[in-house]
């Protein structure tokens, strides 16, 4: 086999193997629930969930759109703010020492405990949810980017300095490219966290009516004991999370594949 074929076979495995595991688990789930006649208000069969999905897809997808909007807004805000904060941190050790503990504070305080406060402080509900999502997603970006911006080849830094490069040149031409693998690792963690923030925030905010997201659907379904709908909403949240994570993998590959070890597969 040529290397290209091996690659294709590997890619097929990468998609096919987890898919097969999922299919087997679903079949097992369906069979067991049917065999033991588990009532669907306790633990629904996959077929119940898909029925419920078919009935409610309109409101489910509207809710998904809302949740995605909040997640992506929070993620983008966290990326921009996090990278800017990291850039400020590496400019001066004093600034980093003074402010880093507060970044940690942001990370260690449970978001579920803070979000009621945020929901009260920020009038606009969507705005409040975006703030919650941003706060949750922020820390991995700050810490990874700071680490990356500092992980510069000292020889290259010497070369830049010997050529009397400005701070801006060092930042743009050396620090940021060196930090890219770290930044992407941070973004990959953060996109999942942004989704968690969006969902947790909505649980706390508990807003009904128009423009509510998947968390609200889950709450409502729980109150109405519509367990299959709850599962359907849950499945959509997971699917959204996986989709966004995969999207980040693709971005990472696009940005790094031509040079970084982490993204290099037997190409030459």
């Amino acid at each position, binding site marked *: 086999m040529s290397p290209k074929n091996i690659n294709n076979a590997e890619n097929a495995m990468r998609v096919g193997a987890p898919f097969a595991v999922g299919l087997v688990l679903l079949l097992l789930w369906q069979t067991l629930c049917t065999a033991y006649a588990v009532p669907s208000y306790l633990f629904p069969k996959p077929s119940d969930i898909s029925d419920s999905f078919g009935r409610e897809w309109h409101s489910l997808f509207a809710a998904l759109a809302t949740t995605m909007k909040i997640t992506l807004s929070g993620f983008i805000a966290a990326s921009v703010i996090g990278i800017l904060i990291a850039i400020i941190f590496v400019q001066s050790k004093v600034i980093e020492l003074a402010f880093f503990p507060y970044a940690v504070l942001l990370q260690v305080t449970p978001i579920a405990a803070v979000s009621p406060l945020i929901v009260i402080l920020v009038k606009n509900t969507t705005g409040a949810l975006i703030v919650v999502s941003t706060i949750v997603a922020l820390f991995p970006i700050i810490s990874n980017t700071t680490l990356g911006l500092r992980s510069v*080849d000292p*020889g*290259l830094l*010497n*070369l*830049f*300095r*010997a*050529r*009397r*490069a400005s701070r801006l*040149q060092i930042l743009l*031409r*050396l620090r940021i*490219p*060196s930090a*890219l693998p770290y930044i992407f690792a941070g973004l990959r963690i953060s996109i999942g966290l942004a989704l968690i923030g969006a969902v947790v925030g909505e649980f706390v905010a508990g807003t009904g009516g128009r423009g509510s997201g998947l968390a609200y659907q889950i709450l409502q379904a729980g109150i109405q004991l519509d367990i299959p709908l709850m599962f359907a909403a849950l499945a959509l949240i997971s699917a959204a999370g996986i989709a966004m994570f995969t999207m980040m993998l693709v971005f990472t590959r696009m940005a790094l594949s*031509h*040079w*970084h*070890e982490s993204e*290099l597969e037997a190409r*030459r």
Partner: protein
Amino acid sequence: MSPAPLTLDEPAAIAPARLAAAPVIEVLSAEKVFADGTRALQPVDLTLRAGDFMTLIGPSGCGKSTLLGMMSNLLQPSEGRLSWWRGGPEKIGARGRQIGIVFQDPTLMPWATVEKNVRLLFDLDGIPAAESTPRVHDALARVGLSKFARHYPRQLSGGMRMRVAIARALATDPDVLLMDEPFGALDEFTRHKLDSDILDMWRERSLTAVFVTHSIYEAVFLSTRIVVMAASPGRIIHEIVVDEPFPRDESFRVSTRFANLCADVLNALSHAQKPTLGPS
């Protein structure tokens, strides 16, 4: 030219002609004590003259890299000073006063192609690509890497990466080339080839070179002057003039003169190590 004599005499007595050449870098009682109190280098006096090929040789910790770092103005002496073209560091960089540096590692940007790596110093100076491209291509051709302009560093072998670093230093047409153990990590064959290449370029472009190395053979093959250093504390203990004409080729490596010169360097180095060999 006569074969090089056994040179344990003072260099001034051997090569008075060299002293006529203009000083390029002068190290004036410069010493280096690091912040943690380590004395990397005792006060050193050294004059690099135009046209020299000077190697700094000595055991680890003798301060040879520190000395080179000060000469490239990347390190400041704790005491004493240096002068470049009889002036301060501001003299560096003007026309006819360019310093090129080659480090121990190739120090290439892994995210940039070979061509972009060689172009780096032009980019930092704000020179447009239209102007730098021919010089970048010339430099790549000179080190035999024209076909690899669009490759990334990780696609190249260690020797090729070092060539890229040399091309980067040469592209800006330096007058002085400072090299810190550039071939230390390479195999013997690659190293011999690159040694010859460096010597050719030094002659072609009338460069002044300072070359740090661990290898006695490399020092003798390349140099016009070998500065022998000793460790703890770092200091210069001896200087050997290599009065062998150029061009030097592989036959020089197997000549008696070569062997004698190597013995001289080895001798000087072992004198330096005596104090540290005793029970302490």
